[in-house]
């Protein structure tokens, strides 16, 4: 093989690998990304049953009902709308009524959000960023949340010295 042919082989191989990688990435981006919505956005956009998304909002005070065998039901509200959520499993340490929450799952036929993951941060001043942003946008932001979120941004941003500490910032139960 001449030098030129060798080089062409190399470049051809490299392009082939890159093409495969690009195909994998595009395919994965189509199938495995999850969008974030609040109850109001769900109502407006008419999200169909079975579409996976992340639901964020505040746990409606008084809505938490514990069933048998770790089953729980609660409502997520964002000031504009409410959405019932059903979940089975261990709730995060800081899951509380009136606090922010992010759940991942899909709507079932009867309009109940079936969550398979409930996320919460290990911090008493926690307000999930997606929830805070959405509440601000819709004008339901209260100043004391702001104080909390402001206090939160600093320690969590600073405390995560490393990747080991990172997942701690967003503990989840599955």
């Amino acid at each position, binding site marked *: 093989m001449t030098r030129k042919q060798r080089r062409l082989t190399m470049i051809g191989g490299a392009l082939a690998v890159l093409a495969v*990688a690009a195909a994998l*990435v595009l395919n994965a981006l189509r199938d495995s990304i999850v969008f974030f919505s609040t109850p109001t956005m769900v109502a407006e956009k008419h999200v169909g049953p079975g579409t996976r998304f992340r639901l964020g909002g505040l746990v409606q005070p008084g809505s938490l009902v514990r069933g048998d065998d770790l089953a729980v039901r609660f409502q997520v509200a964002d000031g504009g709308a409410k959405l019932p959520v059903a979940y089975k499993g261990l709730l995060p340490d800081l899951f509380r009524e009136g606090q922010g929450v992010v759940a991942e799952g899909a709507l079932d036929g009867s309009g109940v959000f079936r969550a398979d993951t409930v996320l919460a941060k290990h911090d008493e001043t926690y307000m999930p960023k997606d929830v805070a942003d959405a509440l601000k946008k819709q004008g339901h932001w209260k100043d004391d949340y702001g104080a909390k979120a402001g206090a939160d*941004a600093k320690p969590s941003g600073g405390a995560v010295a490393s990747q*080991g500490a990172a997942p701690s910032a967003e503990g989840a139960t599955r």
Partner: protein
Amino acid sequence: MIAESGHYALVLALALALIQSTVPLVGARLRDPALMNVARSAAVGQLLFVLMSFAALVMLHIISDFSVANVFENSHSLKPLIYKITGVWGNHEGSMLLWVSILALFGGLVALFGQNLPLSLRAHVLSVQAWIASAFYLFILITSNPFTRIANPPIEGRDLNPVLQDIGLAVHPPMLYLGYVGFSISFSFAVAALIEGRIDPAWARWVRPWTLLAWTFLTLGIAMGSYWAYYELGWGGWWFWDPVENASLMPWLAGTALLHSALVMEKRNALKVWTILLSILTFSLSLLGTFLVRSGVLTSVHAFATDPTRGVFILVILCLFIGGSLTLFAGRASALKQGGIFAPISREGALVLNNLLLTTACATVFIGTLYPLALEVLTGAKISVGAPFFNLTFAPLFVPLLIAVPFGPMLAWKRGDLLGAAQRLLAAAGAGLAAIALVWAWTRGGAVLAPLAIGLAVFVIGGAVTDLVERIGLFSVPLATAARRARGLPRSVWGSAFAHAGLGIALIGIVCETTWNTEHIGTMKAGDSVNVAGYELKLEGLTPRPGPNYRELAASFSVSLDGEPLSVMTPSKRTFTTRGMSTTEAALLRRGVSQLYISLGDTTPDDAIVVRIYHKPMVLLIWFGPVLMAFGGLLSLSDRRLRVGAPRPAKALRAMQAAE
């Protein structure tokens, strides 16, 4: 006083760094050895001042001086001493100070052990190193000064985030930073070579040990962090594809590629331009990681927008260094002479394939990490890219890489014999197939991919063993001769065999843990027992216990197997009074390389407690693999040929200077 001296020492270090970043360059232009030698003393002086500054901050934390904002925000007088010390780098300001300390350490090491480097190369390397250092000293002094005082000192501190009050914090960040920042050396060498406009094999001989050292620490740092997350977070996961984790994985992937391409450059004088580019990219990814973690952009794009000083400062540093070095590369790379040629099927070819797959895998991680950020900035849409994305992209790219790993060392330089290599790997392939059959039969169908992946892992390990066996002629020559040959074998050969085997071992652990992990979640009362993976766990009782700066509720489980009592496990739940946060202290019981894992949830009103019990088969192999890889790295580093700072034989030194 201590705070002010620490601050002052940091300013002096900045002054020295500014001198170090200019004077040696002028010296190199004027060919003035005295000016070039300024780099050495400046680098050592810088190291001393930074260490003084760091020691000052440690001291402030130890004596709990709450008049310093950093101590007030992250410490508490009741905190155990070890966490007072480790808390120094458990926050933004302190961890940046650790970052520059390690940078200065590496600069100091080059200055001290680089006597036999060509003078102008050393001057250039240390100058580039000082540019990086100056930028980060400025960043600390302007935006994140750890020595800021509070006007009205409070009596008590706000305590360190309880999740960080763990021995993991003592080990993980320093290790990780030694890796991250260690890559600055290969970056500085690359930029120095571009400025000088020439590269010789001696350059690669210098870059490789430094890269290897950084890579070894980064490997250990990532593995340590993963194990820490596993036992501290209480839900048994060990890798979350979290952006902060990806930030450390990307330099690791690029660094691994660099390690291999530097080999080609050293041995065959080929792939020069690519190696330079990879050196630049690896450190750029380290800088990107620093930006992602330190700017707050991950916590919230909005937090970044409202308090942009830190983020924008690091972004500017990032753009200056990455943009500058890549521009320099674009301008100078064509001037570098092409090296030796080789056939596609050869050791070089295999290493090129390794580089191709590693950098592509790195690129997919890059896209998965930054795409959500870019999308949010551009369109405002919020998405999350999680494990499914990486499983669909990263894993398929790693499979061909793993298949190719055993072939690499079997191929000859320049032109290899693929068929011959395949024949020599028959035994390893046989072992792999046997493993597939065994696992398949043992699990009676079930998961299809798991036995295949285990077969692949056994093939990788078998390949590493075959390589060693062939080199020492284990079964073809008398045992004594083989033993003598084994001792005579270069340590770098042992090193690469261990590292490759470590890859296979980690894969076995990953596959077994993800496929055959048993989980039990439920509520238990004292006296209840539950059966998990054949183990009988009985909750004996719950006892509240006081701690130094927390209260905890400990549960005591007696574990028995087939009626035989084994041990008692006591997971607990700690509540930290100062921050009102609680953490879960999981209890681990090791059985061989498998583990039983218990963590506690909330107590219910009727005195029961929610528990999570996992049986994780082979889970320890996940971290044993990387430890073996790092051991391989150290072994290779101790090779006489490569030892960092080892005095070079006089002949080689003369040859090297002649080459200049």
